[in-house]
């Protein structure tokens, strides 16, 4: 049995996540993208499941991140593919804002 304790990792200052835009960061050996939408922050893997481009170089419109390489799209809230050519979902991570910091649960 595993315990249900969530392992929150301090990822960034809340103020470092731009509104209506995306940044990339390395966290615990992973390439992560953080998105600022409507005052909320969302987190997914940063590498597109299609062409292996970095989504932090992409184009955020509402809750959709568009890959800069082939313009496939994902919903940043859950990683679901929303536009061809992507068909594989992106891994998304729980986020909480606490003490002005963005915390992620990577496990």
């Amino acid at each position, binding site marked *: 049995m595993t315990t249900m304790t969530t392992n929150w990792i301090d990822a960034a200052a809340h103020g470092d996540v731009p509104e209506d835009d995306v940044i990339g960061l390395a966290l615990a050996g992973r390439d992560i993208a953080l998105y600022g939408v409507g005052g909320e922050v969302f987190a997914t893997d940063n590498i597109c499941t299609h062409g292996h481009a970095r989504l932090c*170089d*992409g*184009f955020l419109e509402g809750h959709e991140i*568009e890959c*800069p*390489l*082939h*313009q496939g799209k994902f919903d940043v809230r859950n990683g679901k593919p929303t536009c*061809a*050519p992507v*068909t*594989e979902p992106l891994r998304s991570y729980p986020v909480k804002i606490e003490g002005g910091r963005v915390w992620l649960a990577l496990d």
Partner: protein
Amino acid sequence: MTAERPEVEAAALPHEGANAHSAHTIVIVGAGQAGGWAAQTLRSEGFAGRVVLIGDEAHPPHERPPLSKAVLSGAAAPESTRLMKPEAFDALAVQWHPGVQVHRIDRAAKQVLLSDGTVQPYDKLILCTGGRARRLAVQGADQVPLHTLRTIEDAQALAPALRPGRSVVVVGGGWIGLEVAATARQQGAEVVVVETQSRLCERTVPAEVSAYLLALHRAQGVRVLLGAGVRGFARVADGADSRSEVLLADGSALVCDTIVLGVGLVPNDELAREAGLACEGGVLVDAQCRTSDPHILAAGDVAVAPSPWAGRSLRLESWQNAQEQGMAAARSALGQAVDYQPLPWFWSDQYGMNLQIYGMPTPAHRVVQRGDPAIGSFVLFYLAGDVVQAAVGANAARDLRFARRLIEQRKPVDAERLADLNTPMAKL
């Protein structure tokens, strides 16, 4: 190369067996990127009838752009180009016929005759037959090995020749020629590009972009000969080496180990022409991807479609068009309202440089430059009045994405701010 077996047989399909005559069947000829997306889209749009996918290649639907780059250099496996993971392809429950050609379309009986002797009836037929690499009908063309680059097998055949100490002549300074030249150079080969026109990619980009590409390749040590026609090929007589000669129109000759032809694409429209469908440098379709036969559609490299961006009909030989027109043809075949008039988008990767083109730049446009080729990143905007109609840029994917929005919104812009790198594109 092992041919892959179709994983799903007709017996497993819905409707099959209940009443074969009521089963609605859509046959797709050509299992490349357009055909693959057509098949995928039929299912994602809820079509539960039979989908028959016939491809003359041994491989499941895949994307071709990496074949002249990562697959050619060995950095990526051919399997990495597949449109779908094997389990996702299986889940489509498509009756896939790899390594099979269609010999004839019988429009009266609404069926296609295959090279394996079988017949496939259809309710709707989608032609995604693509094209093949053009050959040169010149003297000696049958005397020397001439590589082309279109298929996985082409890339695998050429790859071993691209290494230090080997020389490669690329005939044709278009996109495929330049991408092969870049990969060959990065693999350490000596490379000469021979182009018959006075500039590179003359058919698709304005002169200033051709000049940028020329400088890029020369800086990488590629010898580029412009205005150089090829009058023939010859085997080099002396020695035991199997070397070849490219004979140029001015009487000179280039001796090399390997010759690659990158002289364009011939659309595979023979099936359509023999069936009496209207063709003009490819299969003519409308914005609903319909040919002159209402039961037959066409998409991808083989289709000639009206383009409001070009003001004429044209074939778009691009990754974008293969995907999006394939999807559009599938929806049209299902009776959905389709109006396929995409803003043309094209890209090329050479030496880590990413070049993209949106729209159709012409000499009549006013050019506004943002960034600078000298600093390695720039966008050239092509304006009619104050409206951006097209854009070409290198190493500026993010700005280009905003350029697409400007073009699609037809929004007037201030040329000075457009040229100013301190004005974010998002603010225009």
